[in-house]
Protein backbone atom coordinates (compact mmCIF):
# COMPACT_ATOMS: atom_id res chain seq x y z
CA UNK A 1 0.00 0.00 0.00
CA UNK A 2 1.43 3.37 -1.07
CA UNK A 3 1.44 6.45 1.17
CA UNK A 4 -1.35 8.15 -0.85
CA UNK A 5 -3.50 5.03 -0.31
CA UNK A 6 -2.79 5.04 3.40
CA UNK A 7 -3.60 8.69 3.64
CA UNK A 8 -6.84 8.30 1.66
CA UNK A 9 -8.05 5.40 3.75
CA UNK A 10 -7.33 7.17 7.01
CA UNK A 11 -9.20 10.23 5.83
CA UNK A 12 -12.17 8.15 4.68
CA UNK A 13 -12.36 6.37 8.02
CA UNK A 14 -12.36 9.73 9.77
CA UNK A 15 -14.92 11.26 7.41
CA UNK A 16 -16.79 8.99 5.02
CA UNK A 17 -17.80 11.95 2.83
CA UNK A 18 -14.33 13.48 2.60
CA UNK A 19 -14.32 15.21 -0.81
CA UNK A 20 -10.55 15.29 -1.17
CA UNK A 21 -10.39 11.51 -1.50
CA UNK A 22 -12.60 11.30 -4.59
CA UNK A 23 -9.79 11.79 -7.10
CA UNK A 24 -7.70 9.03 -5.57
CA UNK A 25 -10.65 6.62 -5.46
CA UNK A 26 -11.26 7.22 -9.17
CA UNK A 27 -7.74 6.19 -10.14
CA UNK A 28 -6.91 3.56 -7.51
CA UNK A 29 -8.86 0.30 -7.93
CA UNK A 30 -7.49 -1.16 -4.68
CA UNK A 31 -8.70 1.73 -2.58
CA UNK A 32 -12.04 1.82 -4.39
CA UNK A 33 -12.73 -1.85 -3.70
CA UNK A 34 -11.41 -1.48 -0.13
CA UNK A 35 -13.84 1.41 0.46
CA UNK A 36 -16.76 -0.57 -1.00
CA UNK A 37 -15.94 -3.53 1.24
CA UNK A 38 -15.67 -1.27 4.26
CA UNK A 39 -19.03 0.33 3.54
CA UNK A 40 -20.68 -3.08 3.10
CA UNK A 41 -19.18 -4.27 6.37
CA UNK A 42 -20.34 -1.12 8.09
CA UNK A 43 -23.89 -1.62 6.79
CA UNK A 44 -23.88 -5.25 7.89
CA UNK A 45 -22.71 -4.36 11.37
CA UNK A 46 -25.29 -1.60 11.62
CA UNK A 47 -27.98 -4.15 10.76
CA UNK A 48 -27.18 -6.45 13.66
CA UNK A 49 -29.87 -6.55 16.34
CA UNK A 50 -29.17 -4.36 19.33
CA UNK A 51 -29.40 -6.16 22.60
CA UNK A 52 -30.03 -4.49 25.89
CA UNK A 53 -28.16 -5.69 28.94
CA UNK A 54 -30.36 -7.05 31.73
CA UNK A 55 -30.93 -4.61 34.58
CA UNK A 56 -29.11 -6.94 36.95
CA UNK A 57 -25.96 -6.86 34.80
CA UNK A 58 -26.06 -3.08 34.55
CA UNK A 59 -26.36 -2.82 38.32
CA UNK A 60 -23.49 -5.24 38.91
CA UNK A 61 -21.18 -3.44 36.47
CA UNK A 62 -22.09 -0.03 37.90
CA UNK A 63 -21.40 -1.28 41.41
CA UNK A 64 -18.02 -2.68 40.45
CA UNK A 65 -17.08 0.43 38.48
CA UNK A 66 -17.92 2.62 41.43
CA UNK A 67 -15.59 0.50 43.54
CA UNK A 68 -12.85 1.07 40.95
CA UNK A 69 -13.55 4.78 40.88
CA UNK A 70 -13.10 4.89 44.62
CA UNK A 71 -9.76 3.13 44.25
CA UNK A 72 -8.75 5.51 41.47
CA UNK A 73 -9.60 8.53 43.56
CA UNK A 74 -7.09 7.49 46.18
CA UNK A 75 -4.40 6.69 43.63
CA UNK A 76 -4.75 3.13 44.78
CA UNK A 77 -5.71 1.83 41.36
CA UNK A 78 -2.42 2.90 39.80
CA UNK A 79 -0.50 1.38 42.66
CA UNK A 80 -2.52 -1.82 42.42
CA UNK A 81 -1.91 -2.08 38.69
CA UNK A 82 1.81 -1.47 39.12
CA UNK A 83 1.99 -4.23 41.67
CA UNK A 84 0.67 -6.79 39.17
CA UNK A 85 3.34 -9.17 37.77
CA UNK A 86 4.48 -8.19 34.31
CA UNK A 87 3.71 -10.64 31.57
CA UNK A 88 6.01 -10.69 28.56
CA UNK A 89 4.43 -10.39 25.14
CA UNK A 90 4.43 -13.50 22.93
CA UNK A 91 7.33 -13.57 20.45
CA UNK A 92 4.93 -13.48 17.50
CA UNK A 93 3.55 -10.17 18.74
CA UNK A 94 7.05 -8.70 18.89
CA UNK A 95 7.76 -9.94 15.37
CA UNK A 96 4.55 -8.45 14.08
CA UNK A 97 5.27 -5.08 15.63
CA UNK A 98 8.80 -4.98 14.26
CA UNK A 99 7.99 -6.22 10.78
CA UNK A 100 4.30 -6.84 10.13
CA UNK A 101 4.33 -7.86 6.44
CA UNK A 102 5.80 -11.42 6.43
CA UNK A 103 3.89 -12.60 9.46
CA UNK A 104 0.59 -10.91 8.98
CA UNK A 105 -1.07 -13.48 6.74
CA UNK A 106 0.08 -16.53 8.67
CA UNK A 107 -0.90 -14.96 11.99
CA UNK A 108 -4.28 -14.00 10.59
CA UNK A 109 -4.77 -17.51 9.27
CA UNK A 110 -3.98 -18.98 12.68
CA UNK A 111 -6.34 -16.58 14.41
CA UNK A 112 -9.12 -17.27 11.94
CA UNK A 113 -8.49 -20.97 12.31
CA UNK A 114 -9.10 -20.67 16.02
CA UNK A 115 -12.48 -19.05 15.55
CA UNK A 116 -15.48 -21.31 15.90
CA UNK A 117 -16.66 -22.48 12.52
CA UNK A 118 -20.20 -21.67 11.51
CA UNK A 119 -21.72 -23.95 8.89
CA UNK A 120 -23.77 -22.47 6.10
CA UNK A 121 -27.45 -23.48 6.17
CA UNK A 122 -28.13 -26.69 4.25
CA UNK A 123 -30.39 -24.89 1.81
CA UNK A 124 -27.60 -22.46 0.94
CA UNK A 125 -25.20 -25.33 0.32
CA UNK A 126 -27.77 -26.97 -1.93
CA UNK A 127 -28.51 -23.79 -3.90
CA UNK A 128 -24.82 -23.02 -4.39
CA UNK A 129 -24.18 -26.64 -5.41
CA UNK A 130 -26.95 -26.51 -7.99
CA UNK A 131 -25.66 -23.22 -9.30
CA UNK A 132 -22.10 -24.56 -9.65
CA UNK A 133 -23.34 -27.70 -11.39
CA UNK A 134 -25.09 -25.77 -14.13
CA UNK A 135 -24.15 -22.10 -13.91
CA UNK A 136 -25.41 -21.16 -17.37
CA UNK A 137 -28.83 -22.70 -16.76
CA UNK A 138 -29.29 -20.91 -13.44
CA UNK A 139 -28.13 -17.60 -14.88
CA UNK A 140 -30.67 -17.91 -17.67
CA UNK A 141 -33.45 -18.90 -15.23
CA UNK A 142 -32.67 -15.97 -12.99
CA UNK A 143 -32.50 -13.28 -15.62
CA UNK A 144 -34.80 -14.37 -18.38
CA UNK A 145 -37.90 -13.13 -16.54
CA UNK A 146 -36.50 -9.62 -16.37
CA UNK A 147 -35.83 -9.30 -20.10
CA UNK A 148 -38.08 -6.82 -21.91
CA UNK A 149 -40.66 -8.51 -24.11
CA UNK A 150 -40.02 -7.94 -27.81
CA UNK A 151 -42.99 -6.72 -29.80
CA UNK A 152 -43.80 -7.79 -33.34
CA UNK A 153 -42.49 -5.25 -35.88
CA UNK A 154 -45.36 -3.24 -37.31
CA UNK A 155 -44.35 -4.10 -40.87
CA UNK A 156 -44.93 -7.77 -40.21
CA UNK A 157 -48.52 -7.10 -39.24
CA UNK A 158 -49.20 -4.65 -42.04
CA UNK A 159 -47.91 -6.70 -44.99
CA UNK A 160 -48.90 -10.33 -44.63
CA UNK A 161 -48.44 -12.47 -47.67
CA UNK A 162 -52.06 -12.80 -48.76
CA UNK A 163 -51.94 -16.17 -50.59
CA UNK A 164 -50.17 -17.82 -47.67
CA UNK A 165 -52.69 -16.39 -45.25
CA UNK A 166 -55.64 -17.64 -47.32
CA UNK A 167 -54.21 -21.16 -47.66
CA UNK A 168 -53.48 -21.25 -43.95
CA UNK A 169 -57.01 -20.15 -43.14
CA UNK A 170 -58.50 -22.96 -45.29
CA UNK A 171 -56.29 -25.58 -43.65
CA UNK A 172 -57.21 -24.33 -40.18
CA UNK A 173 -60.93 -24.34 -41.03
CA UNK A 174 -60.85 -28.00 -42.14
CA UNK A 175 -58.78 -28.99 -39.15
CA UNK A 176 -61.20 -27.27 -36.77
CA UNK A 177 -64.18 -29.10 -38.29
CA UNK A 178 -62.54 -32.48 -37.67
CA UNK A 179 -61.06 -31.79 -34.25
CA UNK A 180 -63.78 -29.65 -32.66
CA UNK A 181 -65.92 -32.52 -31.25
CA UNK A 182 -62.85 -34.29 -29.86
CA UNK A 183 -61.59 -31.08 -28.31
CA UNK A 184 -64.95 -30.42 -26.65
CA UNK A 185 -65.07 -33.92 -25.15
CA UNK A 186 -61.43 -33.65 -23.98
CA UNK A 187 -62.06 -30.27 -22.36
CA UNK A 188 -65.12 -31.65 -20.56
CA UNK A 189 -63.15 -34.64 -19.25
CA UNK A 190 -60.33 -32.37 -18.14
CA UNK A 191 -62.66 -30.06 -16.23
CA UNK A 192 -64.49 -32.99 -14.62
CA UNK A 193 -61.25 -34.69 -13.58
CA UNK A 194 -59.70 -31.57 -12.13
CA UNK A 195 -62.55 -29.75 -10.48
CA UNK A 196 -65.18 -32.32 -9.54
CA UNK A 197 -63.56 -32.97 -6.11
CA UNK A 198 -62.36 -29.45 -5.41
CA UNK A 199 -65.57 -27.65 -4.75
CA UNK A 200 -64.40 -26.76 -1.23
CA UNK A 201 -60.86 -25.74 -2.16
CA UNK A 202 -60.44 -22.00 -2.65
CA UNK A 203 -59.23 -21.04 -6.11
CA UNK A 204 -55.85 -19.34 -6.20
CA UNK A 205 -57.50 -16.35 -7.88
CA UNK A 206 -59.59 -15.77 -4.75
CA UNK A 207 -56.60 -14.38 -2.92
CA UNK A 208 -55.42 -11.95 -5.58
CA UNK A 209 -51.87 -13.27 -5.42
CA UNK A 210 -49.91 -16.35 -6.44
CA UNK A 211 -49.00 -18.93 -3.82
CA UNK A 212 -45.60 -20.64 -3.78
CA UNK A 213 -44.89 -23.52 -1.42
CA UNK A 214 -41.34 -23.47 -0.10
CA UNK A 215 -39.54 -26.45 1.38
CA UNK A 216 -37.29 -24.75 3.91
CA UNK A 217 -37.83 -22.11 6.59
CA UNK A 218 -34.65 -20.46 5.36
CA UNK A 219 -36.63 -19.32 2.35
CA UNK A 220 -38.61 -17.11 4.71
CA UNK A 221 -37.46 -13.81 6.18
CA UNK A 222 -35.55 -13.76 9.50
CA UNK A 223 -38.59 -12.30 11.26
CA UNK A 224 -40.85 -15.10 10.00
CA UNK A 225 -38.19 -17.64 11.01
CA UNK A 226 -38.07 -16.13 14.49
CA UNK A 227 -41.80 -16.65 15.01
CA UNK A 228 -41.66 -20.08 13.37
CA UNK A 229 -38.81 -21.13 15.68
CA UNK A 230 -40.88 -20.00 18.64
CA UNK A 231 -43.98 -21.89 17.59
CA UNK A 232 -42.03 -25.08 16.87
CA UNK A 233 -39.76 -24.89 19.94
CA UNK A 234 -36.69 -24.69 17.73
CA UNK A 235 -37.26 -28.07 16.09
CA UNK A 236 -35.42 -29.05 12.96
CA UNK A 237 -37.74 -28.13 10.09
CA UNK A 238 -35.72 -29.33 7.11
CA UNK A 239 -35.41 -32.98 6.06
CA UNK A 240 -32.39 -34.72 7.51
CA UNK A 241 -29.71 -34.51 4.85
CA UNK A 242 -27.09 -36.18 6.99
CA UNK A 243 -25.35 -32.93 7.85
CA UNK A 244 -28.03 -31.42 10.06
CA UNK A 245 -28.32 -32.28 13.70
CA UNK A 246 -25.85 -34.01 15.98
CA UNK A 247 -26.30 -36.76 18.50
CA UNK A 248 -25.52 -36.30 22.09
Amino acid at each position, binding site marked *: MLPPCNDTRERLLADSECASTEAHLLECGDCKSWWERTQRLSLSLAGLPRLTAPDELTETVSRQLSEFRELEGDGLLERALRSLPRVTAPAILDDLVLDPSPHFESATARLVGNLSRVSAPAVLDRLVGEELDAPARHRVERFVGDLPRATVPATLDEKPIEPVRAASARRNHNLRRVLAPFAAVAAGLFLWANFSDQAEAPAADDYGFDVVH*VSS*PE*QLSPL*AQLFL*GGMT*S*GSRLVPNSGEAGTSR
Partner: protein
Amino acid sequence: MKVLRPLLSVLLIAAALPGCGVESPVGLPGTPGVPAAFQGEWDQIQQAPWNTRYQGERRVTLSVDLESGERVQTQYIERVSSNGQGKFNILPLQAETPVFPDEPTFLTLQGRREGFFFRYRDFRIRNLELFRKNYRHLDAGSSVIVAGRQAWEVRFVRTGPGGRTYAVAFDLETGLVLRCNEYGERGVLLAALEYTSLDLDPDLSGVAFFVPGNDEVSFNLGSGEGQSILGFKPYLPKAIPAGFVLHETASVSDDMGNRWFKAGYTDGAEMVFFLHRERGTETYDLPITAKTKQAGPSSRDEVSVFRAGTVRAAQGTVRGQDMIVIGEIAEGDLLRMMRME
Protein backbone atom coordinates in the same frame (compact mmCIF):
# COMPACT_ATOMS: atom_id res chain seq x y z
CA MET B 1 -53.15 -20.40 48.89
CA LYS B 2 -55.07 -23.47 47.88
CA VAL B 3 -56.51 -21.85 44.81
CA LEU B 4 -57.88 -24.88 43.10
CA ARG B 5 -59.26 -26.78 46.08
CA PRO B 6 -62.74 -25.29 45.61
CA LEU B 7 -62.38 -25.79 41.90
CA LEU B 8 -62.18 -29.53 42.32
CA SER B 9 -65.61 -29.63 43.87
CA VAL B 10 -66.93 -27.22 41.26
CA LEU B 11 -65.69 -29.49 38.54
CA LEU B 12 -67.61 -32.35 40.05
CA ILE B 13 -70.72 -30.16 40.30
CA ALA B 14 -70.19 -29.05 36.72
CA ALA B 15 -69.97 -32.63 35.56
CA ALA B 16 -73.25 -33.39 37.28
CA LEU B 17 -75.10 -30.38 35.89
CA PRO B 18 -77.18 -30.87 32.75
CA GLY B 19 -75.19 -29.73 29.74
CA CYS B 20 -72.02 -29.27 31.72
CA GLY B 21 -70.64 -32.77 31.81
CA VAL B 22 -68.55 -34.77 29.43
CA GLU B 23 -68.44 -33.43 25.86
CA SER B 24 -70.16 -30.21 26.93
CA PRO B 25 -68.75 -26.71 26.45
CA VAL B 26 -66.10 -25.96 29.03
CA GLY B 27 -68.22 -26.10 32.15
CA LEU B 28 -65.68 -24.86 34.59
CA PRO B 29 -66.30 -21.86 36.83
CA GLY B 30 -68.35 -19.23 35.07
CA THR B 31 -70.74 -21.73 33.50
CA PRO B 32 -74.43 -20.95 34.16
CA GLY B 33 -75.43 -22.77 37.29
CA VAL B 34 -71.97 -22.66 38.79
CA PRO B 35 -71.31 -20.03 41.50
CA ALA B 36 -69.80 -16.94 39.93
CA ALA B 37 -67.42 -16.62 42.86
CA PHE B 38 -65.18 -19.21 41.27
CA GLN B 39 -64.51 -16.93 38.33
CA GLY B 40 -61.76 -15.35 40.39
CA GLU B 41 -59.86 -18.60 40.48
CA TRP B 42 -59.63 -18.64 36.71
CA ASP B 43 -58.25 -15.16 36.82
CA GLN B 44 -55.62 -16.54 39.19
CA ILE B 45 -54.90 -19.42 36.79
CA GLN B 46 -54.54 -16.96 33.90
CA GLN B 47 -52.16 -14.78 35.91
CA ALA B 48 -50.29 -17.56 37.76
CA PRO B 49 -47.15 -17.59 35.56
CA TRP B 50 -46.77 -13.83 36.06
CA ASN B 51 -47.64 -13.35 39.72
CA THR B 52 -46.22 -16.54 41.25
CA ARG B 53 -42.60 -16.49 42.39
CA TYR B 54 -41.15 -19.81 41.34
CA GLN B 55 -38.36 -21.71 39.66
CA GLY B 56 -38.58 -25.16 38.14
CA GLU B 57 -37.12 -27.50 35.59
CA ARG B 58 -39.29 -28.97 32.90
CA ARG B 59 -39.01 -31.28 29.95
CA VAL B 60 -40.22 -30.00 26.58
CA THR B 61 -41.05 -32.43 23.79
CA LEU B 62 -42.15 -31.52 20.31
CA SER B 63 -43.02 -33.72 17.36
CA VAL B 64 -43.13 -32.23 13.87
CA ASP B 65 -44.19 -34.05 10.70
CA LEU B 66 -42.27 -32.60 7.77
CA GLU B 67 -43.59 -32.45 4.20
CA SER B 68 -41.06 -35.16 3.34
CA GLY B 69 -42.92 -37.57 5.64
CA GLU B 70 -40.16 -37.54 8.23
CA ARG B 71 -41.19 -37.09 11.87
CA VAL B 72 -38.76 -34.94 13.84
CA GLN B 73 -38.78 -35.39 17.60
CA THR B 74 -37.11 -32.72 19.75
CA GLN B 75 -36.78 -33.04 23.51
CA TYR B 76 -34.84 -30.91 25.94
CA ILE B 77 -34.77 -29.65 29.51
CA GLU B 78 -35.18 -26.00 30.47
CA ARG B 79 -35.30 -24.06 33.75
CA VAL B 80 -38.06 -21.50 34.21
CA SER B 81 -37.86 -18.66 36.73
CA SER B 82 -40.42 -16.01 37.54
CA ASN B 83 -40.10 -13.32 40.20
CA GLY B 84 -43.87 -13.06 40.58
CA GLN B 85 -43.79 -9.45 39.46
CA GLY B 86 -43.80 -9.88 35.71
CA LYS B 87 -40.14 -10.77 35.19
CA PHE B 88 -39.18 -14.19 33.93
CA ASN B 89 -36.36 -16.22 32.44
CA ILE B 90 -36.22 -19.51 30.57
CA LEU B 91 -32.78 -21.10 30.50
CA PRO B 92 -32.31 -24.10 28.19
CA LEU B 93 -30.19 -26.68 29.99
CA GLN B 94 -29.65 -29.76 27.90
CA ALA B 95 -30.95 -31.56 24.83
CA GLU B 96 -32.20 -35.12 25.20
CA THR B 97 -32.58 -35.86 21.50
CA PRO B 98 -30.49 -34.87 18.49
CA VAL B 99 -31.15 -31.19 17.92
CA PHE B 100 -30.65 -28.77 15.06
CA PRO B 101 -28.06 -27.71 14.05
CA ASP B 102 -26.02 -28.84 17.08
CA GLU B 103 -26.57 -28.71 20.83
CA PRO B 104 -24.59 -25.51 21.70
CA THR B 105 -26.21 -23.55 18.86
CA PHE B 106 -29.64 -24.98 19.67
CA LEU B 107 -29.38 -24.00 23.33
CA THR B 108 -28.17 -20.51 22.40
CA LEU B 109 -31.06 -20.03 19.98
CA GLN B 110 -33.57 -21.34 22.52
CA GLY B 111 -32.29 -18.73 24.94
CA ARG B 112 -33.14 -16.02 22.41
CA ARG B 113 -36.68 -17.40 22.12
CA GLU B 114 -37.45 -17.30 25.85
CA GLY B 115 -39.81 -14.35 25.49
CA PHE B 116 -41.87 -16.10 22.86
CA PHE B 117 -41.93 -19.39 24.79
CA PHE B 118 -43.08 -17.82 28.04
CA ARG B 119 -45.68 -15.55 26.48
CA TYR B 120 -47.06 -17.62 23.64
CA ARG B 121 -45.87 -21.21 23.45
CA ASP B 122 -46.76 -22.31 26.97
CA PHE B 123 -50.39 -23.30 27.40
CA ARG B 124 -52.44 -20.41 28.72
CA ILE B 125 -56.08 -19.58 28.97
CA ARG B 126 -55.78 -16.13 27.43
CA ASN B 127 -59.46 -15.29 27.13
CA LEU B 128 -61.79 -17.30 29.34
CA GLU B 129 -65.02 -16.39 27.56
CA LEU B 130 -63.57 -17.33 24.19
CA PHE B 131 -61.96 -20.46 25.62
CA ARG B 132 -65.36 -21.64 26.83
CA LYS B 133 -66.80 -21.06 23.36
CA ASN B 134 -64.06 -22.81 21.43
CA TYR B 135 -63.08 -25.65 23.76
CA ARG B 136 -64.98 -28.47 25.39
CA HIS B 137 -63.83 -30.41 28.37
CA LEU B 138 -63.93 -34.15 27.87
CA ASP B 139 -64.12 -35.10 31.52
CA ALA B 140 -64.40 -33.57 34.96
CA GLY B 141 -60.71 -34.15 35.51
CA SER B 142 -58.69 -36.27 37.88
CA SER B 143 -56.15 -35.81 40.62
CA VAL B 144 -52.54 -36.39 39.53
CA ILE B 145 -49.07 -35.86 40.97
CA VAL B 146 -46.64 -33.85 38.84
CA ALA B 147 -43.14 -32.92 40.04
CA GLY B 148 -44.15 -34.20 43.46
CA ARG B 149 -47.03 -31.76 43.65
CA GLN B 150 -50.77 -32.29 43.74
CA ALA B 151 -52.41 -31.26 40.51
CA TRP B 152 -55.77 -31.51 38.81
CA GLU B 153 -55.69 -32.72 35.21
CA VAL B 154 -58.48 -31.85 32.77
CA ARG B 155 -58.78 -32.76 29.10
CA PHE B 156 -59.99 -30.17 26.62
CA VAL B 157 -60.74 -30.47 22.92
CA ARG B 158 -60.88 -27.66 20.41
CA THR B 159 -64.29 -27.68 18.71
CA GLY B 160 -64.49 -27.85 14.93
CA PRO B 161 -62.78 -30.07 12.38
CA GLY B 162 -59.30 -31.39 13.21
CA GLY B 163 -59.60 -30.11 16.76
CA ARG B 164 -56.62 -30.81 18.94
CA THR B 165 -56.94 -32.28 22.41
CA TYR B 166 -55.12 -30.99 25.48
CA ALA B 167 -54.52 -32.72 28.79
CA VAL B 168 -53.61 -29.95 31.22
CA ALA B 169 -52.57 -30.46 34.85
CA PHE B 170 -52.96 -27.35 37.03
CA ASP B 171 -51.05 -27.04 40.29
CA LEU B 172 -53.65 -27.08 43.07
CA GLU B 173 -51.83 -24.50 45.13
CA THR B 174 -50.74 -21.90 42.58
CA GLY B 175 -52.73 -22.57 39.41
CA LEU B 176 -49.53 -23.02 37.37
CA VAL B 177 -49.70 -25.44 34.45
CA LEU B 178 -47.44 -28.28 35.60
CA ARG B 179 -48.04 -30.50 32.61
CA CYS B 180 -49.62 -30.03 29.21
CA ASN B 181 -49.88 -32.67 26.51
CA GLU B 182 -51.25 -31.66 23.14
CA TYR B 183 -52.60 -34.32 20.80
CA GLY B 184 -53.49 -34.07 17.14
CA GLU B 185 -55.78 -36.15 15.01
CA ARG B 186 -55.82 -39.89 15.85
CA GLY B 187 -54.28 -39.09 19.23
CA VAL B 188 -50.77 -38.35 17.97
CA LEU B 189 -48.75 -36.47 20.59
CA LEU B 190 -47.76 -33.11 19.08
CA ALA B 191 -46.23 -31.37 22.08
CA ALA B 192 -45.62 -32.02 25.75
CA LEU B 193 -44.36 -29.92 28.59
CA GLU B 194 -43.91 -31.30 32.10
CA TYR B 195 -42.24 -29.95 35.21
CA THR B 196 -39.80 -32.30 36.86
CA SER B 197 -39.25 -29.98 39.84
CA LEU B 198 -40.84 -26.82 41.21
CA ASP B 199 -39.52 -24.51 43.93
CA LEU B 200 -41.88 -21.84 45.27
CA ASP B 201 -39.20 -20.17 47.38
CA PRO B 202 -36.28 -19.97 44.96
CA ASP B 203 -33.09 -17.93 45.15
CA LEU B 204 -33.35 -15.79 42.01
CA SER B 205 -30.32 -13.58 42.69
CA GLY B 206 -28.32 -15.07 39.82
CA VAL B 207 -31.14 -15.01 37.28
CA ALA B 208 -30.86 -12.65 34.30
CA PHE B 209 -34.47 -11.87 33.55
CA PHE B 210 -35.76 -11.54 30.01
CA VAL B 211 -35.21 -8.25 28.21
CA PRO B 212 -37.00 -7.84 24.86
CA GLY B 213 -34.57 -7.60 21.97
CA ASN B 214 -37.05 -6.51 19.32
CA ASP B 215 -38.07 -3.07 20.65
CA GLU B 216 -41.60 -4.32 21.21
CA VAL B 217 -44.06 -1.57 22.13
CA SER B 218 -47.66 -2.50 22.84
CA PHE B 219 -50.36 -0.02 21.98
CA ASN B 220 -54.10 0.35 21.78
CA LEU B 221 -55.16 0.21 18.18
CA GLY B 222 -58.00 2.69 18.56
CA SER B 223 -55.84 5.42 20.09
CA GLY B 224 -53.91 6.40 16.96
CA GLU B 225 -50.77 5.80 18.99
CA GLY B 226 -49.81 2.88 16.74
CA GLN B 227 -49.46 5.03 13.65
CA SER B 228 -47.08 7.43 15.37
CA ILE B 229 -44.94 4.56 16.68
CA LEU B 230 -44.93 2.61 13.43
CA GLY B 231 -44.71 5.48 10.98
CA PHE B 232 -47.53 4.00 8.90
CA LYS B 233 -51.16 3.12 9.37
CA PRO B 234 -51.49 -0.43 10.70
CA TYR B 235 -53.61 -2.68 8.56
CA LEU B 236 -55.78 -5.40 10.07
CA PRO B 237 -56.86 -8.43 8.05
CA LYS B 238 -60.56 -8.59 7.21
CA ALA B 239 -60.89 -12.39 7.18
CA ILE B 240 -60.11 -13.86 10.59
CA PRO B 241 -60.05 -17.64 11.19
CA ALA B 242 -63.24 -18.92 12.82
CA GLY B 243 -63.18 -18.65 16.61
CA PHE B 244 -60.29 -16.16 16.81
CA VAL B 245 -60.41 -12.55 18.00
CA LEU B 246 -57.81 -9.79 18.19
CA HIS B 247 -55.88 -10.23 21.43
CA GLU B 248 -53.00 -7.76 21.32
CA THR B 249 -51.37 -5.18 19.07
CA ALA B 250 -47.78 -3.99 19.16
CA SER B 251 -44.86 -2.66 17.18
CA VAL B 252 -41.78 -4.87 16.79
CA SER B 253 -38.47 -4.47 14.94
CA ASP B 254 -36.81 -7.01 12.69
CA ASP B 255 -33.06 -7.63 12.53
CA MET B 256 -32.64 -4.77 10.06
CA GLY B 257 -34.34 -2.30 12.38
CA ASN B 258 -37.52 -2.09 10.30
CA ARG B 259 -40.67 -1.63 12.34
CA TRP B 260 -43.55 -4.04 11.87
CA PHE B 261 -47.11 -4.00 13.12
CA LYS B 262 -47.84 -7.18 15.09
CA ALA B 263 -51.40 -8.33 15.71
CA GLY B 264 -51.91 -11.42 17.86
CA TYR B 265 -55.20 -13.29 17.57
CA THR B 266 -56.38 -15.93 20.01
CA ASP B 267 -59.12 -18.53 20.19
CA GLY B 268 -58.88 -18.45 23.97
CA ALA B 269 -55.68 -20.52 24.14
CA GLU B 270 -53.84 -20.76 20.80
CA MET B 271 -52.31 -17.77 19.03
CA VAL B 272 -52.10 -16.68 15.39
CA PHE B 273 -49.76 -13.84 14.45
CA PHE B 274 -50.25 -11.30 11.69
CA LEU B 275 -47.31 -8.99 10.93
CA HIS B 276 -47.42 -6.15 8.49
CA ARG B 277 -45.43 -3.17 7.30
CA GLU B 278 -45.61 -0.78 4.40
CA ARG B 279 -42.93 -1.50 1.88
CA GLY B 280 -40.61 1.45 1.58
CA THR B 281 -37.24 2.13 0.05
CA GLU B 282 -35.37 1.18 3.19
CA THR B 283 -33.49 -2.04 3.84
CA TYR B 284 -35.63 -5.02 3.07
CA ASP B 285 -35.10 -8.52 4.29
CA LEU B 286 -37.67 -10.76 2.61
CA PRO B 287 -35.99 -13.22 0.26
CA ILE B 288 -36.73 -13.27 -3.42
CA THR B 289 -39.20 -16.13 -3.15
CA ALA B 290 -41.75 -13.70 -1.75
CA LYS B 291 -41.80 -10.65 -3.93
CA THR B 292 -43.84 -8.17 -5.81
CA LYS B 293 -43.40 -8.75 -9.50
CA GLN B 294 -42.74 -5.98 -11.97
CA ALA B 295 -45.78 -3.85 -12.48
CA GLY B 296 -47.81 -4.75 -15.54
CA PRO B 297 -51.27 -5.84 -16.53
CA SER B 298 -50.56 -9.53 -15.90
CA SER B 299 -48.27 -9.20 -12.89
CA ARG B 300 -49.42 -10.72 -9.59
CA ASP B 301 -48.02 -10.62 -6.11
CA GLU B 302 -46.49 -13.78 -4.74
CA VAL B 303 -46.84 -15.32 -1.29
CA SER B 304 -44.60 -18.09 0.05
CA VAL B 305 -46.06 -20.76 2.30
CA PHE B 306 -44.10 -23.11 4.54
CA ARG B 307 -45.58 -25.93 6.63
CA ALA B 308 -43.98 -27.64 9.61
CA GLY B 309 -46.30 -30.13 11.24
CA THR B 310 -49.43 -28.27 12.28
CA VAL B 311 -47.74 -24.86 12.06
CA ARG B 312 -47.98 -22.86 8.86
CA ALA B 313 -46.22 -19.65 7.90
CA ALA B 314 -46.99 -17.42 4.93
CA GLN B 315 -45.17 -14.30 3.86
CA GLY B 316 -45.14 -12.02 0.89
CA THR B 317 -45.89 -8.58 -0.43
CA VAL B 318 -49.49 -7.92 -1.34
CA ARG B 319 -50.34 -4.60 -2.94
CA GLY B 320 -47.24 -2.99 -1.52
CA GLN B 321 -47.78 -4.34 1.99
CA ASP B 322 -45.28 -6.78 3.47
CA MET B 323 -47.13 -9.43 5.44
CA ILE B 324 -46.32 -12.47 7.53
CA VAL B 325 -48.94 -14.78 9.04
CA ILE B 326 -48.03 -17.69 11.32
CA GLY B 327 -50.21 -20.07 13.27
CA GLU B 328 -51.63 -23.53 13.69
CA ILE B 329 -54.45 -22.93 11.23
CA ALA B 330 -55.44 -24.21 7.79
CA GLU B 331 -53.57 -22.83 4.79
CA GLY B 332 -56.75 -21.31 3.38
CA ASP B 333 -57.32 -19.36 6.62
CA LEU B 334 -53.72 -18.21 6.58
CA LEU B 335 -53.92 -16.92 3.01
CA ARG B 336 -57.31 -15.29 3.46
CA MET B 337 -55.77 -13.16 6.23
CA MET B 338 -53.32 -11.82 3.63
CA ARG B 339 -55.96 -10.99 1.07
CA MET B 340 -56.37 -7.23 0.66
CA GLU B 341 -60.02 -6.36 0.33
